[in-house]
């Protein structure tokens, strides 16, 4: 297991946004989390990525307890994420955004900067190469020099993925990557995720677009009111009464 959560719980005041969730993510697969609005999906991501502290329970990465690590150290271990509301460094170009993404794999410090050491030059080149590499993967090479504020919503989503990839993760968490983009582009995004997965990256995503989830995910967990109500393959989920009642409704094709 790459990631395991045990009895993971998060309370906001009286509300249990995530309640006693046990979940495990196998290496190399595409996992999905679905559930009604407010079910606690984003909160679940926040707990794993160190953005929130759980009220109780543990998060294990390759068997090591990472529950109490700060977000930046978790990223350092190879766990990367995007946000539901796409969050980027707005006042920079696409390339500059992605270059800092690789910063955590470099060691040069203030002294290197002041003395312009060999190490700094080497690492700067490495960051730039990495950035170009991931921009190529997500198909944004052309837009590298544009300001983030001027690119489209869909390009932003891909930039966010590129930024996450630049950290050289083993697993990537995507929070509604296809929200607000059109069907055509959703196709493209699905392909991208598949491609990433084929290259060995483990993926975990939240999505409301069932069409996409059903043909992408290997394994799905369903949350409702913070609790896990079902888990299984897309086929199993599609047929699960509880899930239909709580979430999918009549036409599960939206």
């Amino acid at each position, binding site marked *: 297991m790459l990631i395991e959560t045990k009895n993971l719980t998060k309370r906001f005041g009286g509300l249990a946004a995530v309640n006693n969730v046990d979940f495990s993510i196998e290496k190399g697969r595409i996992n999905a989390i679905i559930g009604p609005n407010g079910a606690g999906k984003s909160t679940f991501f926040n707990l794993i990525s160190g953005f929130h502290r759980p009220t109780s329970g543990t998060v294990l990465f390759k068997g090591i307890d990472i529950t109490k690590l700060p977000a930046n150290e978790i990223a350092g271990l190879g766990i990367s994420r995007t946000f539901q509301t796409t969050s980027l460094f707005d006042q920079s170009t696409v390339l500059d955004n992605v270059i800092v993404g690789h910063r955590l794999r470099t060691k040069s410090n203030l002294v290197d900067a002041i003395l312009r050491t060999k190490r700094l030059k080497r690492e700067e080149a490495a960051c730039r190469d990495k950035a170009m590499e991931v921009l190529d993967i997500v198909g944004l090479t052309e837009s590298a020099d544009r300001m983030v504020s*001027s690119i489209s919503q869909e390009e932003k989503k891909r930039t966010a993925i590129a930024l996450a990839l630049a950290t050289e993760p083993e697993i990537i968490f995507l929070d509604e990557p296809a929200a607000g983009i059109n069907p055509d582009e959703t196709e493209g995004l699905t392909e991208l995720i598949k491609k990433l997965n084929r290259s060995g990256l483990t993926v975990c995503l939240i999505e409301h677009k069932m069409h996409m989830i059903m043909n992408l995910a290997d394994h799905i967990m369903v949350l409702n009111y913070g609790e896990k109500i079902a888990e299984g393959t897309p086929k199993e989920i599609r047929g699960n009464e509880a899930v239909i009642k709580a979430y999918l409704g009549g036409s599960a094709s939206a």
Partner: protein
Amino acid sequence: MKILTKRNGIIALIVFAFSFPYIAQNDYYLHMLTLSFIWAIAVYGINLLSGYTGYLSLAHAGFFAIGAYSLGLLTVKAGMNFWLALICACLITCAIGFLIGLIALRTKEHFFAIYTLCVGYIIYLVIDKWEGLTEGVRGLIGIPAPGNIGPVTFDTAASQYYLVLIFLLAVILIVYRIIRSLTGRTYIAIRNSEDLAQTIGISTMKNKLTAFVLSTFFAGLAGALYASFIRFIGPDIGSTAIMFDLLMYLLVGGIGTLSGPLVGTLLLVILSQNLQFLQEYRMLIFGPLLTVIIIFYPRGIAGAFFDWQRKRKDNALSGVRGELHIKAEEG
């Protein structure tokens, strides 16, 4: 061959700066310029933190005062050698900066600004009230000028000017190198979005703290140079009035730009000297000027210049390639 390149421009400026003492009609200009350079060093410190890392510190007049008082006390009261005292003064400022930064940097945005405003005020009050150490309102008198280094002495206005100029150039070089490096990118990332920086694996606290300490270092260095240049210091060098001055230099010059601190400091110091005839009513002009600049040139003079330059370049290009180009760039 283009003669008007940026590089040549900078070289010309440096040459001019070095030959200035030979051109200057009287020592007073030299005095003012030296003083501006000292302020500029402190402003570079503030810029590193506020302009690039995004944390507006209003405590830097306090750190300036700590640097100045450290040097003053070490030389006057402990009789330490000037150069040793200069190093110690910077280290003391950094040490205090480190401790304050550790706590202050837990706050953000306006809270940070006001927190540091209060820290600055506390530093000022402590200097003012702790008479046993600082002599309180009486101030420190008789701070020595920089000691000789071998045959080089610092007893003339010109030699002090050169000394400060060299420090200033070193500071600019350091800042330049930092912002162009991965470290600089990291700072800018923190300025743009701290949360995001954290999730891509950047230890924001560590980076903010380094930026903070380095910026206090510059402020402390400036303070120490000031003390040995003016040779008399009182608690008021740590007052909020000084802080507002420094901030004004930064803003008018251009926050988050490399040349801004120098441009702003020189311009405003010279301007305020020439407005001396207005005496206490100087601010009738300065206040609105500051406000207007902030409204219409939010990135100061340096920023406005770059925008203008870019626009001109764009226009020149569009002349060649037609309108399509702009559309492609902005759309």
